[in-house]
């Protein structure tokens, strides 16, 4: 099964979908829009039982994935989250878990990974700058201070920072990038919620003022964390693409159904070619999104020669096409699509926000040229 999913993965998908439909239908998501934490602890606990945050954690630390393909399994969860515009930190917690599984010392891994796998610890990742989703250097600085480091600066667009127990902080040191894993309530850390386009997603600025990070908090090596950051970005891009693809599939399915049911000028609007050809194009690009996301998941998971290329290709395609699709889904609905009460805008908000949160399509496309030039040099 080179491209499809195994039977175990299909079962996992349907279990995830059912859990989300039962526990967090869109009415429940709407209830949480004004909630300060913004996600549902009961669903989170149920998800932990299903293994939503266990896939990147080694089995001896209480983790494990359904199929042995951690990133593919995590992408299944992400796609189902998108389909339900589910709020909450499962995806970013998995990105942190993937980073820790790769680079954390055995002691650090033992200290936190069992809690992550069990759903007892929520983790998030702070790396973006206030004006750039993908800064060349992390915006937080870390300077040596005694046996450890002192962190200063502001990281932006940090998902679910208010709910998180742990912050994986990417920082710039005089020797190069480094990463630290800190409790979110460490002295000197201040979380400032942002107003978000995606109403079902919490983002915050996190200010670090003289935060002390001891040697036990270092993930990987100080100055040598570039590869770890890059790996986390690849994982995050794959999960984001999967989530966007799920949201887009749902939005398009709603639209196709509406076009079959809505009658104008004596027949269903979905019988007019001017409309159905547009839906056909969206269906076509959606298949492309699913295909390139699946390809990228395996490229990253197996560290194939295109592991740097594939997630950027996927992000560029999925980001741009999905936003165009959801935009048209609203257009094809007419007035009802423009209302607060109709759910389509919740999906549209997530898709727009995902198009830019980890870098824009143009940025990813330019990054491909950088990669080609580096390879040729």
């Amino acid at each position, binding site marked *: 099964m*080179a*491209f*499809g999913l195994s039977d175990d993965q299909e079962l996992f998908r349907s279990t995830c979908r059912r859990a989300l439909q039962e526990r967090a239908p869109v009415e429940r998501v709407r209830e949480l829009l004004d909630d300060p934490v913004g996600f549902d602890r009961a669903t989170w606990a149920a998800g932990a039982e299903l293994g939503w945050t266990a896939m990147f954690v080694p089995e001896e630390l209480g983790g494990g994935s359904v199929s042995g393909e951690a990133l593919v399994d995590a992408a299944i969860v992400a796609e189902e989250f998108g389909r339900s515009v589910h709020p909450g930190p499962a995806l970013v917690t998995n990105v942190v878990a993937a980073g820790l599984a790769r680079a954390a010392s055995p002691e650090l891994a033992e200290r936190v990974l069992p809690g992550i796998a069990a759903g007892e610890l929520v983790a998030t990742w702070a790396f973006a700058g206030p004006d750039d989703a993908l800064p060349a250097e992390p915006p937080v600085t870390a300077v040596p201070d005694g046996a450890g480091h002192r962190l200063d600066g502001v990281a932006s667009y940090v998902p679910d920072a208010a709910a998180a127990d742990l912050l994986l902080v990417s920082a710039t040191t005089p020797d190069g990038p480094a990463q630290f894993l800190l409790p979110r309530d460490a002295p000197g850390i201040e979380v400032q919620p942002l107003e978000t386009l995606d109403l079902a997603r919490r983002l915050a600025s996190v200010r670090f003022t003289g935060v002390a990070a001891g040697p036990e908090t270092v993930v990987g090596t100080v100055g040598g964390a570039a590869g770890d950051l890059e790996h986390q970005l690849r994982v995050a891009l794959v999960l984001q693409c999967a989530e966007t693809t799920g949201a887009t599939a749902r939005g398009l399915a709603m639209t*196709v159904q509406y*076009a*079959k049911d809505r009658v104008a000028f004596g*027949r*269903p609007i*979905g*019988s*007019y*070619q001017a409309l*159905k*050809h547009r*839906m*056909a*194009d969206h*269906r*076509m*690009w959606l*298949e*492309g999104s*699913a*295909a*390139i996301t*699946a*390809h990228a998941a395996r*490229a990253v998971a197996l560290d*194939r*020669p*295109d592991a740097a*290329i*594939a997630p950027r*290709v996927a992000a*560029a*395609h999925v980001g741009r096409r999905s936003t165009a699709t959801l935009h048209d889904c609203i257009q094809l609905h007419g007035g009802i699509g423009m209302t607060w009460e109709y759910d389509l805008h919740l999906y549209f908000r997530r898709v727009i926000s995902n198009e830019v949160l980890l870098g824009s*399509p*143009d940025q*990813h*496309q*330019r*990054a*491909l*040229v950088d*990669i*080609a*030039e580096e*390879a*040729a040099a």
Partner: protein
Amino acid sequence: MTEQVEVPRQEAPEHETVPEFRARARAWLAAHVPLESPGEPFLQWDDEGVARDRAIQRSLWDGGIAGVHLPREYGGLGLSAAHQEAFREEAAEYRMPENFGNAFNVVIPTLLTHGSELLKRRHIPRILRGDDIWCQFLSEPSGGSDLAGLLTRAERTEGGFVLDGAKIWTTGGNYSDRAICLARTNPDVPKHAGLTMFVVDMRTPGIEIAPVRLLDGSADFCQEHIDDVFVPAENVVGEVDDGWRVATTLMVNERSAIGRGWSLGGQRGQQADTGIGLAPELLDLARELGRDTDPSVRALIGERWVLEAVMAATTKRVGAAIAAGDLPGPAAAILKAMSGATAVRRGEIDLAVAGVRAAAAPAGGGELWGLHRLSSHGIGGGTTEMQRNAIAERLLGLPREPSDDRVVPFRQLRQNTRPA
């Protein structure tokens, strides 16, 4: 009255494992088949290209590696799909006889599904031996998208049928030995119910073939006048008046072959382990023109790679999903439509990056980049609009535009016309 057709056999060991077969195919290809040279056209419809492809197909036969998974009773090797896949992998680097593409991708599967024993025994071995190149007689001057509305008539006569009409856009028509031809046997029933599929010998008196040049200057396809052409009854594929079913099989096979990549060998550089490549041509051009540092040009170059990679990943995914039954056959329309959309955007990007270089190149050398924009349409094998209909109606379940053309007898319909 079935005449006994002697089926020739290839020299090949019995009961070969995949690795044994692979080793034998590898050795034969290396010794007897030319490597594919970079930049050479996929289809070369001229005397040289046709003679070369016939010789290559003949060589595969002589080496006992032709028709790997086709039944032994029709001259094939009768091996498994895994053997066939091994052949495609081994053949990826070599020039394959692509002029036999219609024969292998479209005609053989259609004959295997609907053809009589006689047709299968007579024609499949001739293809395998490199004797017969096939073309498709479907489109007509009066229309191609509305295939079931075609006008060419087939009237019953003593021992067979007489065909009258015209076909057009026939890829390789002037180099083909046989055509698979759809014609109307009954105009008094709705249009889909009165069609019959025939095997037509291109040398039958009454077929007049004229090459038609494509807009890029190449001469891949032809127009044919069909004037009192006799076709024996034994050349009917399937049943008389049941030709739409045969045509449907044909089109499904055509689209899934397009999904696989059409080539008779595997595709180079598409193997799973190397993944997405970043072809340097456009970046090289930008560097030559001093535009490679312009951020908007860099974004366009990246977008072109994105388009190619998404097309390749989707081709694999949809092909595998159709084969596994996870997607229905009409999903192949996604690939056809996407390759059309991809070609259009690729043409736009090439034009934007090349600038004035797209309009003219040094004589005898240098690529004329504007050609990518000139011929980037999705028409052959069914237009992009028809693919959109298929996706919308067959995959999304949206209703057809209302029309009574499926219920009214063909004779009473307003017929397809070619504007003057």
